[in-house]
């Protein structure tokens, strides 16, 4: 099993003032780069960063290609992942995506993982006048053409439903041929299976349990092994899941340092789906007021039936990776048994302290990660058996 970090670039507003301080966003970026540099030295395999727009406090990562380029310049081995690029052309023209991803691949010396997706919430999509109805079809058209732009000389042009352009040679071309490994963001099970049918990796954002992951892995690898119409020129068969993480010497310390950040993650995620007052909400202040009030309430243990609501619910819970090394190890083994290819951690979130994040990474890397890395060959062998008979080229870092 491989491991990575996942960044939303969360930045709660100060509870005691209406807006951020002038240096808050800069500090967030600089701390993130320090963390990624450290993760590279510790042996983490991936760093992924989202692209979100207008989602104040929840994600200040609207230009990930810039941060990822800086991260690439400060690191040597860690894979540099877009998690994801919003592909509907109203958000990003596919030619601009192809140019940026290829350039980042050159800057990083061939370390790019190209995550794709659609964008979510009316706050975000509505800012670009993209509708829920069109976004999936627009993702498909744009992703397919973007991968052609990276791998065909010249790109012959396209007359499509969501964008058109004449023949051009889109340059530069990526270092990885025919293009970097491709992924899609998959909050729902169905999107995981679309990934399989298109021969690309699934970035599972559903906070799947090990049992759910096992079911998805089985169907995913069945479909991907039968893939006849890959969306790109090379397949990336892989299924990862995400979880909120804080590793500390004891469970109590991990919960103390990490739980509130996870709760803010879920809370602010939920907030983005509501009626947002742009530039005027103070989500963190609201969160703290409710947090303090909720401490006296009885816990509710029933998960929502709706998958979207359930994801939100799980995002705000302790989950399986906030705890001591033993706690995290035990839970990771369940994902390993389910043949999940990699687990990505939300470590930077809410009001967590930079030093706690650094300590957590180091403890995890020293006490948990090595045994999973040692067993990864066994997983690769299993994966090779699943992919036996696949006719298409594979470019994957699993």
């Amino acid at each position, binding site marked *: 099993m491989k491991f990575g970090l996942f960044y939303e670039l969360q930045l709660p507003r100060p509870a005691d003032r209406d807006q951020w301080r002038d240096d808050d966003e800069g500090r967030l970026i600089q701390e993130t780069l320090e963390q990624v540099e450290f993760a590279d030295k510790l042996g983490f395999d991936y760093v992924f960063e989202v692209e979100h727009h207008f989602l104040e406090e929840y994600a200040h990562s609207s230009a990930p290609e810039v941060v990822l380029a800086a991260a690439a310049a400060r690191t040597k081995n860690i894979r540099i992942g877009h998690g994801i690029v919003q592909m509907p052309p109203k958000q990003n023209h596919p030619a601009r995506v192809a140019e940026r991803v290829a350039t980042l691949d050159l800057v990083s010396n061939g370390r790019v993982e190209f995550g794709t997706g659609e964008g979510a919430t009316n706050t975000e999509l509505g800012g670009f006048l993209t509708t829920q*109805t069109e976004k999936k079809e627009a993702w498909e058209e744009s992703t397919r053409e973007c991968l052609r732009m990276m791998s065909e000389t010249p790109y012959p042009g396209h007359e499509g439903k969501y964008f058109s352009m004449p023949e051009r040679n889109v340059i530069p071309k990526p270092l990885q041929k025919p293009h970097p490994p491709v992924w899609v963001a998959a909050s729902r*099970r*169905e999107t995981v*299976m679309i990934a399989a049918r298109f021969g690309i990796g699934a970035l599972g954002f559903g906070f799947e349990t090990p049992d759910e992951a096992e079911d998805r892995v089985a169907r995913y690898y069945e479909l991907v092994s039968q893939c006849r119409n890959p969306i790109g020129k090379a397949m990336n068969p892989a299924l990862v899941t995400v979880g909120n993480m804080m590793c500390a010497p004891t469970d109590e310390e991990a919960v103390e340092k990490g739980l509130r950040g996870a*709760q803010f993650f*879920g809370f602010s995620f*939920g907030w983005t789906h509501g009626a947002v007052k742009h530039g005027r909400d103070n*989500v963190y202040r609201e969160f703290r007021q409710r947090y303090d009030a909720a401490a006296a309430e009885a816990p509710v243990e029933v998960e929502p039936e709706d998958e979207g609501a359930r994801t939100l*619910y799980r*995002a705000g819970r302790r989950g399986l990776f906030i705890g001591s090394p033993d706690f995290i190890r035990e839970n990771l083994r369940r994902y390993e048994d389910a043949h999940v290819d990699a687990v990505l951690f939300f470590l930077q979130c809410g009001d967590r302290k930079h030093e706690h994040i650094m300590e957590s990474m180091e403890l995890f890397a020293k006490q948990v990660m090595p045994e999973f890395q040692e067993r990864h060959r066994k997983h690769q062998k299993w994966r090779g058996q699943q992919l036996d008979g696949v006719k298409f080229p594979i470019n994957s870092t699993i």
Partner: protein
Amino acid sequence: MARISDVQDDGFRTSLEEADQAIGDGEYTKAARKCAEIYLNLLEKRPDLIPPPFDWSRAAPQAQTGLPASQSRAAGGQGMRRQGWPGQGGIRVIFDEQRKPSVTYEKPDFSFSEAAYYFEFIMDEVVRAQREPAPAE
């Protein structure tokens, strides 16, 4: 893991095979519409599967965020759960005041990804329904 061959009901199995075949033939609009038909048939036969009303604007941010449940030491989810028709991709399943479902098509044509998306949903839903018999009245 759900497979068409797992479906015991002849009508549902045949319909799923038709949808799967349509995807294979590149008839994505036909496949997407077939999936919506299957869902309506399923809800007609199994009204207990009609999802309860859910409204993001009410649910977020006040509810479902783990407060205060996340104070709990319990970790992880509670296993696989049923889910509602996906709220994206151009086919809406809407419910009237009596929770009677109907389908609206927000565009005339559907893509491969949309057809496959709906197919994976409805196949899983049918198999789950089979696994979880309707509660006795």
